[in-house]
């Protein structure tokens, strides 16, 4: 998997984890979370630096539009809008994550 995509997935997951830790009903279950939110925020900031400002801006823009800014692509189909990605472009090798030409979400390939 593309390392940028891996970092973006990690960013999405860590933000979700932070939201969960801040959820009152999560606290009521009984897990110890003292200082966890602050530690997580530091981790998120560090990850943002690794992603870089240009990619991060692009990601945030898509995230402002969609609840799921990153979606899997299975058998060439975007699992955000279910439109097929052009086959000719699938073989292109790039460090940049693929973008769905229909909905604009970032795509990561899964078998």
């Amino acid at each position, binding site marked *: 998997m593309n390392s940028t995509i891996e970092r973006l*997935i*990690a960013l999405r*997951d860590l933000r*979700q*984890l932070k939201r*969960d830790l801040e959820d009152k009903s999560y606290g009521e279950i009984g897990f110890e979370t003292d200082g*966890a939110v602050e530690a997580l925020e530091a981790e998120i900031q560090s990850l943002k630096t690794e992603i870089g400002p240009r990619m991060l801006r692009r990601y945030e823009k898509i995230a402002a539009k969609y609840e799921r800014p990153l979606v899997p692509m299975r058998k060439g189909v975007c699992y955000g809008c279910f439109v097929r990605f052009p086959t000719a472009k699938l073989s292109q090798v790039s460090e940049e994550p693929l973008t769905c030409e229909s909905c604009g979400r970032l795509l990561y390939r899964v078998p």
Partner: protein
Amino acid sequence: MKLIDFFNKDEISLDLGAADKDAALREMVGLLELDPNAEEMLYKLLKKRENLGSTGIGKGVAIPHCRSLVVDRLRVAYGRKPGGLDFDAVDAKPVHHFFLIVAPPVEISNQYLPILGKIAQFCKNTKNLQRLGQIRSTDEFFDVLGRIE
């Protein structure tokens, strides 16, 4: 839905081979049979969660959990380590029972936290844990869990 409905026979191991915390997390993630990339990302995220505070809640139970894009539906697995292993649990005692809960970030049925709560509640009952310690097959596991709403 009842708690039992979230478990799948293939995602239960009554004899984990892991000898330490990291290996236990890896083995539990392995029960979900994800692709290697997803497995590695999930393991790293669970490790990060553990670094923020152990999910070993005491009484020999750990409930590693997180939400991640690498799964497309709520997944639950159970693992038992009869001899127990050190999981940095809150009571510093060895952990014998592992419940792994993973859900996608956006989950329409929104069952992640309720399921987490149900399992934590189930594990607070010492009798339930004793029963889990004695079961010899996955069918018996379902019998024990089937009594829970």
